[in-house]
């Protein structure tokens, strides 16, 4: 019995590790998936009169890189986020609830277009939603 118990545990552990829960990063499609979300979102922003003015003086290449880094980082991917805090980078923009809603709506549209599962979409929204307090009315 004493020898069997560790064996059973070892088997159980092996069984578990054979079906690991894919990370959110993987569910979003890894690096190409996140690149597609980032590019899709930038295209949406460009066409959205409600918020495009906030990006008038933005270095788009840098913004694109930092957004991809951040999405990768918060979803558990192998990336370092090298940008400033959300609070710092949005100060002076006076981003309102309506602007935030517009961005979230655009992100949802892009994720729907990329056919990301509803569960993965909700996991990502759960990570991004709390940034509201750092981003708006600064």
């Amino acid at each position: 019995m004493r020898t069997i118990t560790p064996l059973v545990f070892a088997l159980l552990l092996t069984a578990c590790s054979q079906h690991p829960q894919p990370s959110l990063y993987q569910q979003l499609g890894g690096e190409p998936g996140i690149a597609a979300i980032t590019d899709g979102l930038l295209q949406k922003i460009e066409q959205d009169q409600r918020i495009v003015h906030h990006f008038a003086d933005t270095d788009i290449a840098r913004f694109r890189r930092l957004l991809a880094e951040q999405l990768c980082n918060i979803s558990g991917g192998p990336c370092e986020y090298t940008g400033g805090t959300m609070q710092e980078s949005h100060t002076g923009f006076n981003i309102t609830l309506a602007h935030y809603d517009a961005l979230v709506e655009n992100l949802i549209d892009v994720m729907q277009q990329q056919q990301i599962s509803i569960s993965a979409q909700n996991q990502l929204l759960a990570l991004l939603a709390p940034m509201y307090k750092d981003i708006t009315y600064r």
Partner: protein
Amino acid sequence: MITRFTLALCCLLASASSVAGSKIVATGGASSIEGSAGGGIVPWAVINGYGSSDEWSATAFTSRVGVDDFTLNVFGASVSYDNKWEWSVARQTFKLDSIGGELRQDVFGVKYHIAGELLYTAWPQISVGLQYKKHRDFGLPQAVGARDDSGVDVYFSASKVLFDQVAGRNLLLNGTVRATKANQTGLLGFGSASDNNYQFVFEGSAAVLLNYNVALGIEFKQKPDQLNFATEQHWRDLFVAWFINKHVSVVGGYVDLGSIAGFDQQQGYYISVEGAW
């Protein structure tokens, strides 16, 4: 009346441009039978329509509740601003199918969103609301012991969407505490000969958002029991809400209204259509 109203609603919808507010689809809730944004029978802390900060929104709706011995027809409208203020009006016509006759009541509502954001803050969205209810056919309610033909309900609501809760789906929770003197939500008048005090009641809703457009939920509405002539019981319902887009939503459900005016086990259907601009 309802047919004409539905027709008008359809015409408005057909002519409506694509202009809609910035709020995310479904976050304006549906129109409750009292005209306030909510589920079917419970007001929520959400503000009607899709107006986000600094935006205006308007809604119009019609609902019908059909149970064994009664039919309630409602139509109404609301205007909202800044995702903070909501002004609503509703006309209820309660048909006494088995007894004969009908009772009409008007509900004028105002709601103010005090704090929190449904989707974005850790705290729930919290709102306070008033509903001024005026009975238009007070003879029968008076005859069965109601004291007044009008009353003011005051309620506090807290609503929150929790992401990724049930099989990866989002969950909406709502709790409402209401101070009321209304008998059967005012359809049988307000207060009684022996008691004119406010009663505090709890109302709750829970809904799973299967996707961005479809919600499956349940509601519970605690009710006072003031009139001696018949027992009043709590209400409950199960509903499916389909937010087709930011302009049209449809809610269907099953309701259990308990005993009403001596008629027990009043169960049946709930259907509601809302247009939003």
